């Protein structure tokens, strides 16, 4: 058990034993170190299965939408990037913050087991990070990989070590700021010709199997009934029809979360086909920054987001299309 995990489990046990909270949302051990699942714990006895390691990439904030519907107080462990999602959910009245104790936990970037396996390592039995290297054990032999090569995509362009919200924090080791430019991927796409860009997205989006994992994991997608699940809407569909998947579903979803997406990166993490969906959202974020001024969704749990606020100085739609500079 690492020291941070020890501290987290100790705090969770205190909160449950003192009846300060009725439930703790965290991560539960899997069969290996790399397959923990989000889980709720209601007694300190259950905490023997609690885990906090390099593979706890899942953002737990969305689980609070349902958890808050039942009575009782909840403690949730959020990494810095997850706290932005929490704020956004509070702002949208999907989570009642009075019911939740947010405990910020340190994060040094989470690892992607699929990236580890894509290095040609099969039958992985363990993986441990230390000093920028990841030591992987497998039935076919051991390997050492650079951490940066096997980080989750979302961690490559980490929002930083700031907790947008936290009632308390557990940080034993100082977190390092990443210096990666999160818009570099978008810029590469912007530099393509229209034909190239269309070909890129067509190839990526035609892999979509319409499993809806991106939508269901998204903390900004919390409609009680999604229009695409509503048989009365006329647009409900379960089949991945080419033109629809390539041109409609993901783009409509990106529009719907534009201005509210905190760039948590869960959509790309969960995609079984590794479609870089976060690039769609980031394009919107980049454009919003340009047209309406720098804005980070989830920075606070109050106020209005650029796309739902009207100011006379707002950019005209035509200037957005033509790529002109925003108003001051």
């Amino acid at each position, binding site marked *: 058990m690492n020291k941070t995990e020890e501290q987290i489990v100790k705090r969770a046990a205190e909160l449950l034993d003192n009846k300060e909270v009725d439930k703790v949302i965290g991560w539960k051990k899997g069969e290996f170190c790399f397959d923990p699942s989000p889980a709720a714990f209601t007694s300190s006895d259950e905490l023997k299965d609690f885990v906090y390691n390099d593979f706890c990439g899942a953002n737990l904030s969305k689980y609070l939408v349902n958890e808050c519907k039942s009575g009782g107080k909840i403690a949730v462990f959020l990494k810095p990037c997850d706290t932005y999602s929490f704020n956004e959910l509070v702002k949208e009245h999907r989570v009642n913050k009075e019911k939740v104790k947010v405990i910020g936990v340190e994060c040094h970037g989470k690892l992607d087991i699929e990236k580890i396996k894509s290095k040609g390592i099969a039958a992985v039995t363990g993986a441990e990070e230390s000093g920028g290297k990841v030591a992987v054990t497998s039935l076919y032999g051991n390997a050492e990989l650079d951490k940066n090569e096997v980080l989750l995509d979302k961690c490559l362009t980490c929002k930083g070590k700031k907790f947008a919200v936290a009632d308390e924090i557990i940080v034993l080791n100082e977190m390092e700021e990443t210096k990666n430019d999160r818009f570099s991927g978008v810029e590469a796409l912007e530099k393509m010709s229209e034909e190239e860009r269309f070909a890129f997205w067509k190839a990526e989006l035609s892999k979509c199997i319409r499993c809806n994992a991106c939508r269901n994991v998204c903390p900004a997608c919390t409609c009680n009934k999604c229009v695409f699940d509503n048989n009365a809407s006329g647009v409900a569909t*379960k*089949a991945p029809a080419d033109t629809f998947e390539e041109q409609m579903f993901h783009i409509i979803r990106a529009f719907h979360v534009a201005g509210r997406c905190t760039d948590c990166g869960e959509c790309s993490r969960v995609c079984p086909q590794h479609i870089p969906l976060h690039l769609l959202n980031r394009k919107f974020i980049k454009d919003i920054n340009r047209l309406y001024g720098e804005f980070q969704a989830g920075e606070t749990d109050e106020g209005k987001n650029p796309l739902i606020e009207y100011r006379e100085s707002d950019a005209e739609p035509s200037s957005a299309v033509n790529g002109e500079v925003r108003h001051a």
Partner: protein
Amino acid sequence: MLKFKIDKLNELFDTISAETPLAMPLEKAGEADYGRYEKGAKPALGVLKTVKSPKDLFFPQSETLMKFKTEGKNLAVEAPDENVTPFVLFGVKACDYKAFEVLDRVFLADPVDTYYQSKRNAATIVTLACSKPEESCFCKVFGIDAAAPLGDVTTWMDETYLYWQANTNKGESLTEKVRALAEEGGEDAVAKQQKATREIIDKLPFSHLDLSYFKENGTKEIFDRPEWKELSEACLACGTCTFVCPTCQCFDIREFRSAKNEVIRYRCWDSCMYSDFTQMAGGNNRTTQMQRYRQRFMHKLVYYPENNGGLFSCVGCGRCVNKCPQKLNIVKVAKALGGKKHD
């Protein structure tokens, strides 16, 4: 036994596809899935698991059942042509091949699903033995030998050769078409690879998963286990597990107006994880995600075996183990309910 030099494989695929359509794992935008081979396509035979299974070839994610056309006061109903062109399905792994048996028992039982049957009959299946199974594989639990898959032709691949063994008449006639590209031999290399593969499989962490609990206990008892709630808690209600699964077979039937005077009735994969799954006029008999989650595993481990002589509706391909966004899976369910840990 025949063998083809690895650098002659494209020639082999070109030869086969010149005569009959050829479906095989291909790389597309970084991922491997079954697709139609055409000259210049990128075969992905080195990939252990395609994202989706080859069930798509017999039971496509979406397919037209019939079309309705109106002209004036006349209504015409058009069924798709059931004469499917014979095709070759290449590179099927042992687990996915076994999954066809699971699907056959559903689609080919009376009343026969002719859409499935016509494609199934049209296929010559060439399997490919595994040589580098991974931690999420557990086909051994279901009595599958990944080193000796069945099919019309069985193949094995190493760094230098693809070894080829015809098993059926269909396989023999495919062999005749490609024999000119092949050399004789390879028995020793295949035996050596099989031994190594089986040794690794024996050591895989899930290879000795014990499923006896699901055979020894009554449906009601398993259904009522309190653990289902905790097991399903993190489920996002997405359809990833069901859509990557080689044995999931549920579908929905829908219609859409494709032109002013035409309506297409189609079927598409459905997922028991979805809130409108088997929804009826009176509502839905499963209203919580726990119930939906339980349904999936009860179907695989209890209901299906009850109706099919004890055959589980899981072949241990491990795709759900790899792909569940929150790392929930059938192994965790089996262990939590069966209570017996692997060695």
